[in-house]
């Protein structure tokens, strides 16, 4: 059973697991997925890519940012059967650029970036991740595998 105590202006409640088993009747206001103020996920409501998405880390803003944007845009809008098959040149440019900055883009990870980004965009459109983060450039795997710690990310 829950136990309640008042210490001045502060109220303290101790609850057991059973106390909390019944579903909550607290009402939360429904989310508007198109709310312009909210932090957007990787894909914006109009279908464009949100380059400022924390999930991308600093990929779009670093020295190879423009190459990354070209490659990823090409991939995103690609309507080919094998998605992104016509974007080989863009990806090669991006890879060449990244090889010039091995400190920022460790070579073994960056091959993961495109397929991961795709899976992330899939999950992102379903439930837009809400994040504020500064993942370093080295983390070139955007999405749920974002394990390199930085400062902050929150998801709703």
């Amino acid at each position: 059973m829950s136990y309640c105590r008042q210490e001045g202006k502060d109220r303290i409640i101790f609850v057991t697991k059973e106390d909390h088993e019944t579903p909550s009747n607290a009402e939360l206001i429904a989310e508007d997925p198109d709310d312009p103020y909210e932090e957007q996920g990787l894909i914006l409501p109009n279908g464009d890519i949100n380059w400022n998405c924390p999930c991308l880390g600093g990929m779009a803003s670093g020295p190879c940012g423009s190459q990354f944007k070209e490659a990823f845009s090409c991939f995103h809008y690609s309507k080919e059967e094998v998605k992104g098959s016509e974007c080989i040149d863009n990806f090669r440019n991006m890879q060449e650029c990244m090889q010039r900055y091995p400190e920022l883009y460790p070579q073994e990870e960056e091959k993961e970036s495109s397929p991961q980004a795709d899976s992330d965009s899939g999950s992102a459109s379903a439930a837009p991740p809400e994040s504020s983060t500064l993942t370093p450039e080295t983390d070139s795997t955007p999405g749920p595998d974002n394990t390199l710690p930085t400062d902050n990310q929150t998801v709703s």
Partner: protein
Amino acid sequence: MLKCRTVWRKLAPLARASSTVCRQNVRRTGLTHGRLPAQVPAAHMSTGPTGGGRENQLYFLLVGVTCVGAGVYAYRTVKGDQLRYQDRIDEISSRQEKFNTENSDTPSESEPVLAAESVEATETQVVPKPEPQAEPVPESEAEPSPEPQAEPLPEEPSPPVPDAEVEAPSETTEPPLGESTPVSLKVPSHTPYLLIGGGTASFAAARSIRARDPDAKVLIVTDEPDLPYMRPPLSKELWFSDDPSVTETLRFKQWNGKERSIYFQPASFYINPEELEGAENGGVAVLTGRKVVHMDVRGNKVKLDDDTEISYDKCLIATGGVPRNLQVMERAGEEVMKRTTLFRKVDDFKSLDKVSRNIKSITIIGGGFLGSELACALGRRSNDSGLEVIQMYPEKGNMGKVLPEYLSNWTTEKVKREGVKIISEALVKSVTCKDDKVEILLKDGRLVKTDHIVAAVGLEPNVDLAKSAGLEVDSDFGGFRVNAELQARSNIWVAGDAACFYDIRLGRRRVEHHDHAVVSGRLAGENMTGANKPYWHQSMFWSDLGPDVGYEAIGIVDSSLPTVGVFAKATSKDTPRAATEKSGTGIRSESETEDTATSPVASSTPAPSVEQHRDDYGKGVIFYLRDKVVVGIILWNVFNRMPIARKIIKDGEEHADLNEVAKLFNIHED
């Protein structure tokens, strides 16, 4: 001149017919005068079909104005070209160095050629062309060389230019000849995006700008010698590192074993300031060791401490703050100041680490986040080194201004268990230095003798620029007063610790936390690139006080507000370490990316039932209320649920039963 006349002759009959329209146009074209000298005269001419003499005067006036306009335009182009040319030459010369190490015979060839050229340095036309050709990198030079050459010819009439040109050759002869000398740090005179301050908010803004504005050129000016870095590890993780060289590497290992540096990005991410203007795809440049001392808002420019001026299109002020000091300490004299650390920067960490290894006793004044974290960190060390760690503060318990009293007391007990000697309700009366020891006399008569003091008594926001810029400073919270979109003036934004902003949900506030610096920096960057979004995404903060006590918080967390706390008993699984190990992240706050909280009530397999002990605040949720609305939430040893907390604050609803709200957090589960 002739062209102008023919144009006029052709157009005048037509124009006279529509003279009224043209009269109106005159006023408008007057504004674009400098840009289209060839067309304006035609419009002007058509307004006055009055007589021959008048026409002639007008004619001469127009021709004169046209020449001046052309002259100004050409002068500016040359100046711009010179700058670009200079940059180019500098870049070439640095490339020349690399090339020379490979081909030893070419330098000997190019040098006599250059020597011959330098003789002709005074002749403006000849030098720019042959000199680039002497460079071992041929084709890239074809471009700049015709340009500087073409320009000198029309420039003979205007006096200032030949002087500038003579300067250019004499400068450019230097780098190729003196190959090993590095290029001097030339500050760009204009930058589209200027970020004052090189901390977390500034870096977040830089990243945001670069993501949204392709090829943006961003200049960060900081008075620190370091590139942008994150502060939380300076009082937490870095102290727990086993690496003896941690003060040099500034790398720390997180709970999940992964290592990273406190620097957001290594140096290779940034470009040099002098390369900024010429960078094709833009970039972020950091100018370290320079302070902005004056801001001219009308002229859109700033002045540095070495009198350099930089003009900008958009500016962010992210100057953060400086640690406060107690007045009694300031009056205490130099001997005491030598034994005092005001902790904030990397250098402070380095010096405190060194000092703490060589002394017997250290006292931390201040019971807030920084003070408590440092006390715990040093207390841990005391187990090995025998260092006496004392923490003193005016409140009754640690985090007394943040946590409700019962929780603050509980926390204090935990901190004591970390090896810290707590002196609560301590008001410092005076501090003196005696026999190489510092003596702190408290108002109630207690005397504390120690070797070194760390003052963690708050932050004074840095608003030095407010005066020269004419920006408003908030009297309640301190800091620059900005609106909900972090804007102070039309081209000036403020973010981070120094920003007193309007939070649409929670009212005007100023927040001194890391995540807020990230959130506000990002928002400022977005707004600088045209987003016009208000502060909406609530930032959070966290603190760990030893391995057993950790919490995350969001919103207004002020112990003077009425609170409602809902607790369960903590099992060994509910510790900060366990939380991060499970989610595989380092800094705990970002483990939240793992979840997408689509449904507030998470259902999962029931955990083994937990014994309920009274007064053991193992884990729970604490709501802070203002007029019956939840404005702040602390997740006490409960992790990965920040999104739910954020949602509750965002809604801003009055909830009748907060226990029901607490159910949403599922505190009994992991």
